Each structure stands twice: as C-alpha cells, then as structure tokens.
C-alpha cells in the first residue's frame, strides 16, 4: 500500500509536469498525424510496402519515446533528492512508467481509430501494431534518458534508433535487432493479408520487456544514494 502510494505520487507528479507543458502536449499528440498525413495521399496497393502506415507508426514511436525521454530528463535533476527523502529507485521508474504508458496508450488509441477508419481491412493488426509501439516507446525513452543523460547525446541516439528503423528494410538480417521491428512487421503482415502475427507481437513484447529491465537497472545505478550506513563500514582504496 505504502509502495503503491509512492508510485502513484510520482505518476501524478509526472502527469502534472507534462499537462502544464501545453505546447509540448499539442506537439506530441499531433506528431504522428503529421507523419501520416505527409504520405497519406500516396496511392498504394496490396503487395506493395504500406509506407504510409509504417510512417504513421514511426510517428507514434517518435512521440512516445521522445516524450518519455525528455520528461524523464527534466525530472532527473531531483531524483537523488527524492531518493534521499525516502523514495526507492523502483518507485521513481515505476511511477514514471505508469503515467507515460497511460499517456502513450491514449495517443495510440486515438491514432488506432484513425488508421482503422482509413484502412478497415487491416484494422486488427494495425491497432495491435500501434499499441505495441506505445508499449516499446516509453521504456525506450526512459532507458535512453538513463543511459545518455545529456540532451544532445540522448536526442541524437533517439534520432539514430528510430531513423534507422525507418530506413532499414525489414527483411534484412539486422532488422530484428531494432526495437520497433515487431510493429513494422505487424503492419506489413496485416496489409498483405498473409503471415503469422504472433511472432511479431512477441518480438514487440520482448523488446518492451528488455528495454524496461534496462531502464530499471540504469536508473537504479545512475541515481543511487549510498546511505552513510554503507559508507561507514566501507573504506574504498585510493585511486
């Protein structure tokens, strides 16, 4: 109970922080639409690469991962202080994850409706692809914020990962190493009406789980408070 209250407080704090950034909120919510509309007029047929849908999912990935990355970075400056006050590293990560995942699913739900209306034949796997993208994007942003806590480096890494995801053909051997491989393949499968969905769904869930584990470990290490209880009995060797 005590733990869940702490997680809820962190989630609420993260929510207040984002909801007061009005312009950022509008931009995050509209980013996938801009991606989608930029290629929506292109005529595609079954058997061709569903480029517009790929782009739309990548737009959701940008919005979710980018939002998680920058929000986590902005909160990071008081993490050690919160830990010193009594929070545990897992409270901070889980609290942020809870809020950001809810936010990501709200964006995903909105765009799922849009995509499903425009491409009803592929609606099921398409909705699944967008949902899995939201599931992967949040821990990706959190992990990057812990791994590369400086804005420039982290942003460049985010551009690199999602940019390569956009440009790398999904049939190459290296493609499964990228986090959004599952959703991209789900879209292709749904569009061409053949192939199994389950392997790509599992790939997406595995990617989300690994990224979440990575984020938890990195945040715990990065924000660690070495309580004097430990320091008192430890004499580290001089460098």
């Amino acid at each position, binding site marked *: 109970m*005590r733990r869940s209250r702490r997680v809820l407080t962190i989630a609420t704090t993260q929510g207040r922080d984002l909801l007061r950034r009005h312009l950022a909120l509008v931009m995050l919510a509209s980013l996938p639409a801009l991606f989608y509309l930029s290629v929506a007029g292109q005529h595609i047929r079954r058997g061709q690469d569903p480029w517009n849908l790929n782009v739309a999912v990548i737009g959701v990935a940008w919005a979710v991962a980018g939002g998680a990355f920058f929000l986590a970075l902005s909160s990071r400056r008081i993490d050690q*202080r*919160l830990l010193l006050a009594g929070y545990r590293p897992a409270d901070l990560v889980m609290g942020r994850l809870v809020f950001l995942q809810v936010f990501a699913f709200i964006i995903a739900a909105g765009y799922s409706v849009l995509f499903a209306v425009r491409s009803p034949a592929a609606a099921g796997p398409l909705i699944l692809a967008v949902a899995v993208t939201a599931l992967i994007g949040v821990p990706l942003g959190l992990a990057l914020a812990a791994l590369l806590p400086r804005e420039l480096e982290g942003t460049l890494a985010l551009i690199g990962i999602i940019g390569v995801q956009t440009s790398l053909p999904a049939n190459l051997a290296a493609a499964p190493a990228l986090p959004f491989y599952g959703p991209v393949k789900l879209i292709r499968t749904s569009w061409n009406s053949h192939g199994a969905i389950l392997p790509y769904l599992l790939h997406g869930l595995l990617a989300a789980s690994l990224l979440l584990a990575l984020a938890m470990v990195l945040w715990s290490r990065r924000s660690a*408070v070495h309580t004097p209880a*430990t*320091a008192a009995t430890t004499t580290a060797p001089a460098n």
Partner: protein
Amino acid sequence: MDSNVPGQPRPATSPALTVAGVSKRYGRRTVLEAACLRAVAGQAVAIVGENGAGKTTLLRICAGLLVPDTGTVEVSGRIGYCPQDPGVLDLLTVDEHLELFGRAMDMSPQEALLAGHRILAELRFPVGDRTVASRLSGGNRQKLNLALALLGEADVLLLDEPYQGFDYGTYVNFWDLVDAWRQAGRVVVVVTHMLAELTRVDHVVELPPPRRLASEPARLFAGRPERRPR
C-alpha cells in the same frame, strides 16, 4: 549507526555525524584530502573555504550522494539535505512539492501540507501561494528548497549555502533557526561564505584551497568565541 530511512522509528541514539579522513578526486584533480568533521546532537558546524575547495563535495559525501575515494562517514539519524541549486521541479507548485516530498516520508498530503506550511511560515514564505516554482523569485525558490530539506524533522541537516537570495530579515532569521535546531538536539552542518556568522556555530571546518591540498589538510576550529581555547 542508523541508516537514513524515512518512515522508520527515530534512532535510539542521538543524532550524530562523523567524517574521518575523507578524500575525493575527480580524475587527476584532488578536491578533498583527509577531511574530518564531527558533530553530535545539538551542535552546528560550518564548512568554509574558497571556491573549489570541495565544500559541496564534502556535503554530498555526507549525504551519501557521492562515494569518497577514502575515508568513512557515519551518520546517526535521518538526513535532511538542501542542495546549493534549488532541487525543485519548475512546473510544480509549492504545495505539490510538499506533497511529493512528504509522501517519501509516508506523510499524507494533509500532513505534508501542515508541516510544510509551518516551516515555510518560519522562513517568511507567503504560504498558500499557488505559483509554480519556475515563477517564484530566486529567494522564494531557495526558501522552498530549504523547506523540503526540513520536512519530516530530519535529525541531521546538511545545508549547502541555503540562504542564497534571502532578504536580510530572512537571512538573520535563518541563523536564529539554526540556533533553534541546535537546541532541539539536531545536528546542523552549513556550507557558508558568511564568515561573520561563524560565531553562531560550534565548530568550523576550513577546507584549504585546491592548490594547497598536499601541504595543508582541512583545519577544524571552534566557532563560538567563548569556546575557543585561550
């Protein structure tokens, strides 16, 4: 020896802080060399020294935010830490900060607000202000910063130049509060450049400038004139 775990019962022993032989290097640069400090319940200690002498580093090591290369830190009691730069979130109001930090100590929002407003009133902060932190004046941000360190009645207060931006009245009031915290049996450690106030602490730790570290270790002397050896 007690760990810093909020929500746990107060330590059976009195609050105390002991730092022995602490050294810290950043790469090739030595910022602290064999620093020592000891304070027991009811004592205030000032850490002074030139810019770059390692005052903030020493305080962060005491708080557990940095690991020393050598030496030991022993703390009895819960730590309240006030960083030099206000560790607050720009888009949260004062009350939301109190609720956030209060929850870390398992205080309900009502308890956190009650305790926080009392502390803020002592610091002459306009209680009930709904302004977000980014729109507070520098002095009021610093008051919030200090109030968050005081929330939960920590036993060992580690304060890094906590009065920056305070108006004169609040600054004077701050040192009166230091006296009150001492009398309440708390340990108070203040990083300060205000040498005129060193008479109001029990001990002063003077850290040598970095260029003299090898030949001159940290000095410890009494703060209050009446306690200085003749």
